[in-house]
């Protein structure tokens, strides 16, 4: 006797149940593949390692160039290609070090610069600035964030 009703495709012995299951499994695999690839692309898009490397090299070379200048120099560093306020900046032991703000265990990007021992840096770490002000005189180099920031 043939079974009647809406359940014929699922409970009939000769129904194409395998085909339906195969299609469901393929859909599931496709969705999982999409989720995996989407997560990977999101991680690549959110990755800040290149930004940190770029900023550290840019600022390191800037400090070298400031030391090369004759006379007193004051320079305000802004960057529209990278968001400075996402990072903390350190200037210790002849290295610029950059790490994301408010995080621990993140990768630090460092770039060395040649300090002039006749004109040493006498500042501190700078946290999430929108601008960085470099001021070089004969006696010292000063690095600070924009004083108008709150």
């Amino acid at each position, binding site marked *: 006797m043939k079974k009647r009703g809406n359940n014929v495709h699922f409970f009939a012995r000769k129904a194409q149940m395998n085909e339906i299951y195969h299609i469901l499994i393929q859909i599931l695999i496709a969705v999982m593949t999409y989720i995996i690839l989407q997560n990977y692309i999101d991680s690549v898009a959110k990755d800040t390692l290149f930004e940190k490397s770029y900023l550290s090299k840019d600022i390191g070379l800037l400090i070298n*160039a400031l030391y090369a200048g004759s006379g007193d120099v004051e320079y305000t560093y802004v960057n529209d290609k990278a968001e400075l306020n996402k990072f903390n900046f350190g200037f210790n032991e002849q290295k610029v070090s950059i790490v994301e703000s408010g995080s621990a265990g993140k990768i630090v990007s460092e770039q*060395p610069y040649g300090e002039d021992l006749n004109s040493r840096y006498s500042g501190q770490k700078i946290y999430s600035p929108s601008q960085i002000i470099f001021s070089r005189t004969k006696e010292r180099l000063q690095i600070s964030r924009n004083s108008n920031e709150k």
Partner: protein
Amino acid sequence: MKNKRAITTFEILMWVPRILFLVVVMFTVMILIRSYVATTIDTSELEANIFISRILYSPNSISYFDSDIGRTYQGVIDINKFKSQTADKFLERSVYYGDNNKEIGAKFLLRDLSSNENNEVTIYYNEDFFREQKKLADSGFTRGPGGARGYSKKYDVIISKDNILNRGVLAIDVVVPNS
């Protein structure tokens, strides 16, 4: 093959190459994406040029410095500073990368053209490191980590000695390791 159990087994076995192929395609897509993302920034030539500018512009290295007006004369080399026993130390003090400097090395060769004799003076910045990296740069190992690149520049300069000015040539060789 009409046996349902056999058909099911066959279809399950066919999933194995399909999943393998899927994994290969996923890795290929990930590698393609990663290959278009830039991860390295090469600034070695710029570093070398800025280093040379710092040495030439600094009042505390080899250029002639007029203390009365506080001006450094780029292009005028003070031979007393150049020949000083502590010239290397002055250079390293004006561009200080730390006690164990593995960032840059340089050689400065000054030739006096006004004299018929072979009048050359050579000083170094980070001499041991320069000699070591120069071999790498000259051998062609300029790509990838562990290699080094060399940059050379020549300047026509005036050599100042006891208020006497002579023509000269300053040849600067700088080596910068890749990383």
